[in-house]
């Protein structure tokens, strides 16, 4: 089934002018790693049975409370790590393909 108006295949076509090796539209190993990192940060804080206890206490905070507050920092760190990994991948690609570098604003068209 193809798109009636543009003739592009259904599901959003690829632009033939774009470099197919650009990691932005490929599922790269980095992206799998990032997905796993982020899934850890989503699933682990929701596993209530792993932290529904009062001991050990920390500055008077029961475990249940300080453990979850600690996850605020862990999750932020994991998001930061993911951002850095994706940025590194993009930078590596642009070093090899400088012609793909986004042009400075003003002459975008």
């Amino acid at each position, binding site marked *: 089934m193809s*798109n009636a108006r543009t003739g592009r295949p259904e599901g959003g076509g690829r632009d033939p002018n774009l470099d197919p090796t650009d990691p932005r539209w490929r599922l790269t190993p980095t992206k799998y790693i990032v997905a796993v990192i*982020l899934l850890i940060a989503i699933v682990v*804080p929701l596993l*209530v049975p792993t932290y529904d206890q009062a001991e050990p206490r920390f500055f*008077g905070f029961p475990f249940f*409370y300080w453990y979850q507050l600690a996850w605020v920092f862990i999750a932020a760190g994991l*998001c930061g790590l993911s951002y850095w990994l994706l940025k590194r991948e993009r930078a590596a690609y642009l070093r090899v393909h400088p012609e793909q570098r*986004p042009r400075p604003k003003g002459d*975008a*068209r």
Partner: protein
Amino acid sequence: MTGINWVALIILIILFAVVTVMGFQAARWRRSGDLDSLHEWGLGGKSFGTITTWFLLGGDLYTAYTFIAVPAAMWATGAVSGFFAVPYTVVLYPIIFFFLGRMWSVAHRHGYVTTADIVQGRYGTRSLSLAVAITGILATMPYIALQLVGIQAVLEVTGLGGSSVLAADLPLLIAFAVLAAYTYSSGLRAPAMIAFVKDGLIYLVIAVAVVYLPIKLGGWGGIFDAAQAKMATPSPANPQMPTGVFIPGAAAHWAYASLALGSALALFMYPHCVTATLSSKDRGTGRRNAAILPAYSLLLGLLALLGYVAIKAGTKPIGLDGTPNPQLVIPQLFEDQFPSWFAGIAFGAIAIGALVPAAIMSIAAANLFTRNIYKAYLKQDATDAQEAKVSKIVSLITKFGALLFVLLLDRQNALNFQLLGGVWILQTFPAIVFGLFTRWFHRWALLAGWAAGMIYGTVIAYGYCTACTTRPFGNSLAVVPVLGKAGYIGLTAFVVNIAVVILVTALLRAARVSNGTDLTQQSDYFADLGDPGVERVVTESRPIH
């Protein structure tokens, strides 16, 4: 409570006045742009960098929900009804990290301003984008209602209002009038400007409160012990049951996790959060913010624990009508424990912290109406000035809708307003987010799933009222079919929604029914500032319908 706390009230009024003047000045901030266009009034020119976006997002994520509703729920019934907000804001950022970049890119390639635009571009199906638009407007109303309750709580503790029927709602009406006047005048630039002031005030107040109060009251250990003791005593409403939950047992695990997960999935479907995201200047801004926004989550956790601090301090949140009202517990704590002038600053911070997000929310809901209902159905050749005018009027109507929610529903558990909005807005998630990744899902299946989730969620939420008064929509937890445990109604409805979407998609694809016209292409979901076709400022006049 005896009479009006004049010092606190005067400081509160001064802070309000400063903020209002700044709101009017904000119209001139950065660019002498033409506020008569929707794009300027409603998106601030789409030019905000990481820091401004951080303040703006913080301004709409952390609201009266954080300062009033969560601590009130902690004070009243403990962890399951309140502290779930911490894991909620923890898992929120990894979740949005997945789709925020794609949303930004496609929006900037095609000039989309709302979630309904994005759905329209992906499926070319007006009924689906209309469903998304209507749900967005509906779900925003109870969220704004929560902000009004927050401002009202502060005004009530300062002693404004009275016990007669009319005077009892006076604080609420003042809150409403201030909000309406200042949003109408300067659009999104006002809240972005004020967000700086607001966060400065909030951090000051919180820093003092979470350091000073536990020391004064003998340390966190004693505070947690007092909370544990209160939660274990028999509930005044139902002596068979304990008052609340200190640490959720096995029976409450799913309730706790589902409230957190459901709230996190729902948040970035709200029109106001999308507005804040799309008004950032490049693709990475949202993701950079995912790593730095958790600073607010820590704040939220400590604020939640102020509910326990109030238990230890013996705060008695008695309203002007003489009955206890948990929503007053934080303002009352400040009034009891601090000198009047500092209480005034705290009240100002809380009130402004509710005002800013309420303004952003009503603007975003208005954008949604103007773009996806007014311009799509009512007047397709509307000029920029007409659009901006309609937006301003609709933002006012949205606030009236919020006022109705406050007046008709149970105000004692304001947190529930946010969860009710979540039940509805979560049902737009499959249409918006699944579409950013794949075109496999069928447009009619997404519409059917949305309808199934909306009907299931609304019916269940309307009927279950166990922990509240006799008003409808009193509780957001209900027994999950099959699982047999209590869970967040919104998340259960979301699962129903997805099941219907998958089933109907499989059927429609087998029957080879057309899946609409896709105006986007794959690279649109990865474009960044400087790429061809991505403009720093999106041209509002580019047609989408």
